[in-house]
């Protein structure tokens, strides 16, 4: 532990909080100043995080005890191991560029001060999760992240769908967090500590209980939008596009994966099996559903679901390093995709329907280039960033003899190429399908610079940079599948990848058949409708209306009958009524002094009862 480095972490963590408070209090009306201040802060943090990543030799540990309530200790501390340092850098680096992008994107917004204060408070929360050294602190920042996500989704709160989407995100996350907090209680009950380091040091003889891992997993399912709590993520696209890029693609949803990697030692094989299967299913489902979305951001949101599923599957297969690697790569290319989408939406005067776009390659060349490079990375074209992690995970599934996960991941890889091709075909190729796309224009430099940096540089080069980006202890376990895949064309992952790319090439042609329409919808409306993925929401609707509501009404009836009726009306109201009947109105004189006297006499009586014994 060195004092100057923990001081550095203080700066990283608290600078955004100070800026957020300052913006919220002082700069409400001065949105432009708030925007630049917040962006400058984000870049300073990214620089500090880079120092931490590159210059801290070992784990950085710092802890202070704030308070203790009986057994529970409220501690505040940092545990920066290799994973945390990587995550710290990725989050702050991607966030800095997204801040810059937001300046251009939100230029005409009236509530810029609130928006950038929100981004800063989000930075504070997510960095808190990254550095936290105990479960309770993680939980507190976890909730703060939920709050800031809620606030930013509801940025256009005067629109009904945005208000509804923010509520949906918040409530769905609460369902997962219930499991999380029960997990905390369980952990405290059985192990008496919530500290990661203490927990890791005291593994019980019989292994960790399944319940602990399963409960903590619930928090992950909510935050990382895994089945069955994935429904909020696609609706969360109602927020401004930079928010979708930062929170709902690159960092917040990935925080769940990060958290799982951090407490990976608590997971039992049974829990891992669930995570692997549900993650792989989510990957396949998300990828396929992305095929049937007309809103460009929704399509990307399903793609995010698919990638989160892939990360979850990597966790479940017992490769947290691979999950983190994919999280890093995904953060770069998915942030680019979302920013590209934002740039397209901005250029097309807030048109989000892909079927209304087309031919934007010539009108927005920089955006198109960055978007297509990020797409190639998304499709795991060899030597692009996504290839290193995604193919490694598919390969890991095959090597782990987990053929179910392998099959589902192969479907996901195929679907990824299909929806990516569809997106590129509908948005950038062909001819303009609407007035808005006809008059599209390239975005200002504040938007294109982040696209170029994140897209062209990092979606391409992050793979080459892995040798120093991946934590040193992780390279050992990654190296084997990575090598086998890179140098052998017979590796199954390579075949899956190549076949998917071929299918993607075919899809590029397929979606050009009917201009202005979705080819799949024309050929098979039923498949398309199924993939639109309305059924999960319908199921929840049915569950809430027909099951939960009935139960709640029954409980409300019991409450009315027993608490209000029997206990309230008969017992609690009955005793004074009987007393009053016998004493007349002597007790009830309406005199304050009289009541004071009764209070004093009552207190003396109680004191006598307790003290005289």
């Amino acid at each position, binding site marked *: 532990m060195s004092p100057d480095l923990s001081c550095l972490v203080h700066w990283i963590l608290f600078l955004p909080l100070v800026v957020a408070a300052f913006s919220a209090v002082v700069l409400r009306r001065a949105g432009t100043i708030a925007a630049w201040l917040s962006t400058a802060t984000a870049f300073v943090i990214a620089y500090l995080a880079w120092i931490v990543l590159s210059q801290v030799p070992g784990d950085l540990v710092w802890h202070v005890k704030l308070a203790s309530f009986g057994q529970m200790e409220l501690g505040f501390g940092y545990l920066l191991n290799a994973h945390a340092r990587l995550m710290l850098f990725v989050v702050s680096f991607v966030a800095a560029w997204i801040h810059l992008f937001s300046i251009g994107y939100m230029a005409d917004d009236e509530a810029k001060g609130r928006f950038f204060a929100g981004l800063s408070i989000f930075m504070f929360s997510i960095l808190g999760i990254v550095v936290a050294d105990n479960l309770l602190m993680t939980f507190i920042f976890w909730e703060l992240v939920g709050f800031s996500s809620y606030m930013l989704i509801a940025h256009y709160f005067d629109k009904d769908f945005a208000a509804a989407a923010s509520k949906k995100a918040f409530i769905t996350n609460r369902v997962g967090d219930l499991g999380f907090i029960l997990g905390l209680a369980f952990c405290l009950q059985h192990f008496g500590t919530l500290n990661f380091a203490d927990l890791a040091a005291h593994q019980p003889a019989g292994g960790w209980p399944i319940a602990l891992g399963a409960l903590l997993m619930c928090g992950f399912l909510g935050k990382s939008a895994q089945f069955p709590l994935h429904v909020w993520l696609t609706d969360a696209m109602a927020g401004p596009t930079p928010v979708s890029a930062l929170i709902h693609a690159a960092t917040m949803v990935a925080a769940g994966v990060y958290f799982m990697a951090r407490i990976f030692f608590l997971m039992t094989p049974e829990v891992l099996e669930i995570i692997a299967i549900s993650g792989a299913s989510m990957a396949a489902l998300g990828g396929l559903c992305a095929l049937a979305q007309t809103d460009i951001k929704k399509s990307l949101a399903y793609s995010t679901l698919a990638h989160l599923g892939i990360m979850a599957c990597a966790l479940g297969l017992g490769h947290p390093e691979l999950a983190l690697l994919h999280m890093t790569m995904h953060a770069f290319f998915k942030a680019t995709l979302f920013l590209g989408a934002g740039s397209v939406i901005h250029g097309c005067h807030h048109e989000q329907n892909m079927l209304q776009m087309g031919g934007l390659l010539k009108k927005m060349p920089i955006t198109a280039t960055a978007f297509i490079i990020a797409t190639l990375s998304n499709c795991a074209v060899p030597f692009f960033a996504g290839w290193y992690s995604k193919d490694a995970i598919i390969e890991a599934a095959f090597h782990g003899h987990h053929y179910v996960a392998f099959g589902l991941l192969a479907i996901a890889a195929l679907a990824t190429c299909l929806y990516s091709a569809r997106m590129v075909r509908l948005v950038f190729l062909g001819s303009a399908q609407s007035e808005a796309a006809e008059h599209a224009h390239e975005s200002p430099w504040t938007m294109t610079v982040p696209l170029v940096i994140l897209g062209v540089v990092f979606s391409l080069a992050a793979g080459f940079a892995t040798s120093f980006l991946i934590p040193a202890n992780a390279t050992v376990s990654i190296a084997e599948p990575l090598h086998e895949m890179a140098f052998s064309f017979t590796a199954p992952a390579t075949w899956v990848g190549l076949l998917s790319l071929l299918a993607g090439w075919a899809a590029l042609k397929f979606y050009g058949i009917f201009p202005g329409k979705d080819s799949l919808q024309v050929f098979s409306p039923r498949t398309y409708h199924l993939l639109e993925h309305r059924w999960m929401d319908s199921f929840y609707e049915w569950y809430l209306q027909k099951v939960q509501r009935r139960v709640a009404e029954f409980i409300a009836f019991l409450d009315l009958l027993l608490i209000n009726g029997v206990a309230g009306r008969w017992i609690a109201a009955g005793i004074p009524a009987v007393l009053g009947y016998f004493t007349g109105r002597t007790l*009830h004189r*309406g*005199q*304050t*002094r009289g009541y004071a*006297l009764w209070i*004093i006499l009552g207190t003396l009586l109680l004191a006598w009862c307790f003290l005289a014994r």
Partner: protein
Amino acid sequence: MEHTTLAHHLILAGLLFVIGLTGVLIRRNLLVVYMCLELMLTAATLALVAFSRFNHLMDGAVLVFFVITVAAAEVAVGLALIVALFRQRGTVQSDALNSLHD
């Protein structure tokens, strides 16, 4: 007067408390009642400080700071209520405030 003991302090606190209590019970002006209530609180605080001092612990003294702070906030609220009451009813005599009885 050099030999003040804990008992002296406690007797003083007790006297203050009883004075306050009597005031609360017999006075009719809400403002005076309120002052007497504060006197009771002060008496309790004095006892706390006395115990803290004679036990050579700082805990009580520190707690008193919080008590005083909270009491200040509470006084502001209470006075505001009395002012609001006066505006509403034109009186702060507790005898006149008996509409609950009817």
